[in-house]
């Protein structure tokens, strides 16, 4: 029997992956279960393994790791909750992920020592290059997670700690943090100047000196540092959001 997939649990990642909640409705003529889907690949830092997410919209998603040739896929989470956005720590010893809309968790790369790291509407998490901290965006309004009008701020939490520090403080949305390769700066996407035009900002890793790098009337988002730290790639759409 088919089960209706509630939009509340689909989250941003799945919504974008599958084209939005509107595409996920139950087909009344369908008799087969939803297909098994595999998504979100990430190479281990040594290049020998690939982690990915596997599951079905009828059940849940788990984090798997396989060898780089596809052999020996292993379920690390066997979790009844929905997990997304899994990434390796820089040294490959740990894996972090998002528990649906309820926070971030970390575990050893073999799935052992699973523990919850944050408890909030926390997305876009990225490890600092030295592996000591994780930056992410949090909706600080307390509204239901995923509310479009949420106020997103950039936060950091120590990889062994549970109390995040909020780095940004403004009414506009701040999201998509990315550490500079030397760990001293964080680039991010901000709507603080004008809610209709996203800009690329850079701040120091302690949140000081936020600087608008792309001040203009176009939409700039998804900043990523070049490996040598001299350049930043980003998306641009020359239309208002």
């Amino acid at each position: 029997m088919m089960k209706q997939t509630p939009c509340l649990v689909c989250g941003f990642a799945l919504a974008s992956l599958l084209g939005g909640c509107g595409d996920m409705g139950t087909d009344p003529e369908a008799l087969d279960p939803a297909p098994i889907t595999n998504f979100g690949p990430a190479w281990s830092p040594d290049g020998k393994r690939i982690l990915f997410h596997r599951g079905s919209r009828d059940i849940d998603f788990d984090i798997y790791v396989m060898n780089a040739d596809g052999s020996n896929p292993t379920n690390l989470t066997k979790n009844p909750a929905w997990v997304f956005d899994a990434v390796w720590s820089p040294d490959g010893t740990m894996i972090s992920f998002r528990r649906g809309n309820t926070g971030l968790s970390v575990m050893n790369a073999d799935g052992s020592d699973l523990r919850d790291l944050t408890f909030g509407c926390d997305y876009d998490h990225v490890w600092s290059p030295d592996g000591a901290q994780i930056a992410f965006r949090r909706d600080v309004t307390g509204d239901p997670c995923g509310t479009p009008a949420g106020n997103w701020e950039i936060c950091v939490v120590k990889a062994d700690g549970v109390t995040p520090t909020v780095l940004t403080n403004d009414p506009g949305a701040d999201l998509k943090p990315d550490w500079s390769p030397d760990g001293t700066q964080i680039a991010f996407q901000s709507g603080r100047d004008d809610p209709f035009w996203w800009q690329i900002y850079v701040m120091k890793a302690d949140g000081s000196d936020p600087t608008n790098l792309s001040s203009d009337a176009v939409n700039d988002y998804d900043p990523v540092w070049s490996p040598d730290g001299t350049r930043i790639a980003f998306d641009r759409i020359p239309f208002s959001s």
Partner: protein
Amino acid sequence: MNADGSESRNLTDDLGGGNPVWSPDGTRIAFECVGGICVVNGDGSDPRNLANGGNPVWSPDGTKIAFERKFGSGYYEYTDIHVMNSDGSNPTNLTKGGGD
């Protein structure tokens, strides 16, 4: 653009673009384009459409790219993890999802 915001440049005029990722050596950028997965040099030269798919990620040595490819449609749509060489050759499905 440079890390101080100067010399902002459009690398992908006619390709569309999203979700950029640098190659580990910093010379190329893979991204999602109208035709699937594209790669362009960091100075905008030599843009190539490599494969039908999305969410590209470079292997640490830069020789391969893992990505997602869609199958089916609507309720029955699913994706599988593929790996190809970074020139687009030899795409291989590693996960075989769907009905199993």
